[in-house]
């Protein structure tokens, strides 16, 4: 076998051969992720009413939520693969329908195993079908390379807005209707994904047409996993999941341990949500102008600096608010540049699948962030060790993103040996 020619993965004319208008794609994508990311973000609010009414332990509820996060990550590559192969609209519709079914089942589950299967497994799989990885494939195929990072930033900002919006909405629904009825209403929200997905229905063959040279799924996977920059991106995204979920889950407990009022945690939650919207949009826009590896390194490094400063200063409501605002800016800001780099290197043909694998790494980090946070707290009696792990990981992620090569991978066209 000898190498006879090579072709870049992206940046070619065919790379922008989308069949949909960017405005339509962004509108439908933004609404879909607003709903899909928003619904799940407030699930913690159901802990008290569900466990009280069903007589379950908190562990039952926590297990279902942990399972949901793992299922979301594990099903991501498969959902992405199906979306790249059969079209994102079908996967989104199946995801939306499964999301609604999972919410109804969650409301009516009367045993711990049934709750784990619905709120954990089914909703986790459904999320894989209707969140970033699937939607980014369509955005990637229908946006020109020079606007792709920005477009991904718009969708990420919409998902962030959904998270920000739905917490008070879900709290209000539980208070007004009761926890079961509130879940039925959310199921109705999830069903809106079905008609919205029609707006992302691509022309048959769009994926292949937009992706450059023909390549099988297996070849695409071997290429990606054998490419050092993809491994480095996955390592960085692992850290993102660890830090964000550790802080999101354990910070209220940390504040409570230090004697701060519940309202401080609520305001912190609001500030993280608000600044997250600005941060994700800004990261997408900046990714269009600056090297994304530098942007990612800066985000991870700034997270570490923010945590060190937060720990070094006396803990007051003001320090919590400032930390929350800064962390909010850096919260999901890694999402647009990470996915845009994947598209830049490998092209957009298998963007959803490769994005799904990168996201799996994120979810493993998330799982460890929650689990180690609890484990090390129980062992040492404080969060200090986990905070320092989060700081060290931030520095590590900054360093591993620096050598990422953003240029399109050169694909060798193989020919028989003469």
């Amino acid at each position, binding site marked *: 076998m000898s190498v006879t020619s090579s072709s870049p993965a992206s940046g070619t004319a065919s790379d922008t051969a989308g069949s949909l208008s960017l405005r339509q794609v962004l509108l439908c994508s933004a609404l879909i992720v607003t709903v899909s990311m928003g619904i799940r973000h407030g699930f*913690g609010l159901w802990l*008290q009413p569900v466990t009280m009414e069903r007589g379950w332990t908190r562990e039952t509820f926590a297990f279902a939520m942990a399972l949901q996060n793992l299922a979301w990550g594990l099903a991501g590559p498969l959902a992405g693969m199906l979306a790249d192969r059969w079209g994102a609209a079908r996967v989104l519709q199946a995801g939306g329908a499964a999301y609604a079914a999972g919410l109804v089942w969650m409301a009516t589950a009367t045993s711990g195993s049934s709750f784990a299967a619905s709120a954990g497994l089914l909703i986790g799989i459904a999320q894989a079908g209707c969140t970033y990885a699937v939607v980014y494939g369509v955005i990637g195929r229908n946006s020109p390379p020079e606007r792709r990072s920005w477009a991904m930033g718009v969708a990420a900002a919409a998902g962030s807005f959904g998270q920000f919006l739905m917490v008070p909405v879900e*709290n209000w629904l539980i208070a007004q209707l009761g926890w079961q009825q509130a879940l039925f209403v959310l199921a109705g929200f999830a069903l809106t994904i079905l008609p919205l997905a029609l707006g992302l229905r691509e022309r048959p063959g769009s994926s292949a047409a937009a992706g450059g040279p023909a390549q099988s799924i297996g070849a695409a996977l071997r290429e990606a996993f054998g490419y050092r920059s993809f491994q480095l991106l996955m390592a960085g995204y692992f850290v993102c999941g660890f830090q964000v979920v550790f802080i999101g889950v354990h910070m209220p407990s940390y504040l409570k341990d230090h004697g701060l009022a519940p309202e401080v*945690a609520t*305001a912190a939650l609001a500030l993280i949500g608000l600044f997250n919207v600005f941060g994700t949009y800004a990261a997408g826009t900046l990714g269009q102008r600056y090297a994304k590896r530098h942007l990612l390194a800066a985000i991870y490094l700034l997270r570490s600096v923010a945590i060190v400063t937060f720990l070094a200063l006396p803990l007051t409501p003001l320090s919590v608010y400032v930390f929350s605002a800064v962390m909010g800016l850096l919260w999901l800001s890694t999402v647009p540049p990470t996915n845009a780099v994947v598209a830049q290197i490998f092209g957009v043909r298998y963007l959803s699948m490769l994005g799904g694998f990168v996201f799996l790494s994120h979810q493993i980090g998330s799982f460890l962030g929650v689990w180690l946070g609890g484990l090390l707290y129980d062992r040492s009696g404080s969060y200090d060790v986990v905070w320092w792990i989060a700081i060290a990981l931030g520095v590590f992620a900054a360093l591993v993103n620096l050598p990422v090569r953003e240029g399109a991978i050169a694909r060798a066209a193989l020919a028989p040996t003469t």
Partner: protein
Amino acid sequence: MPASRTPRTLLRWLGWLGVVLALAGVFLSYLSPELAVDLGNRVWSCF
């Protein structure tokens, strides 16, 4: 074309104004006393 650019610019500004108003509205809803206490208790009850 200044004639067509003006409505487009106006629409863009209106769009941004809508975004800012939506964000401000949601943020203020977090700070309303009833919701802050209710939400705080629910968040606290997780730990």
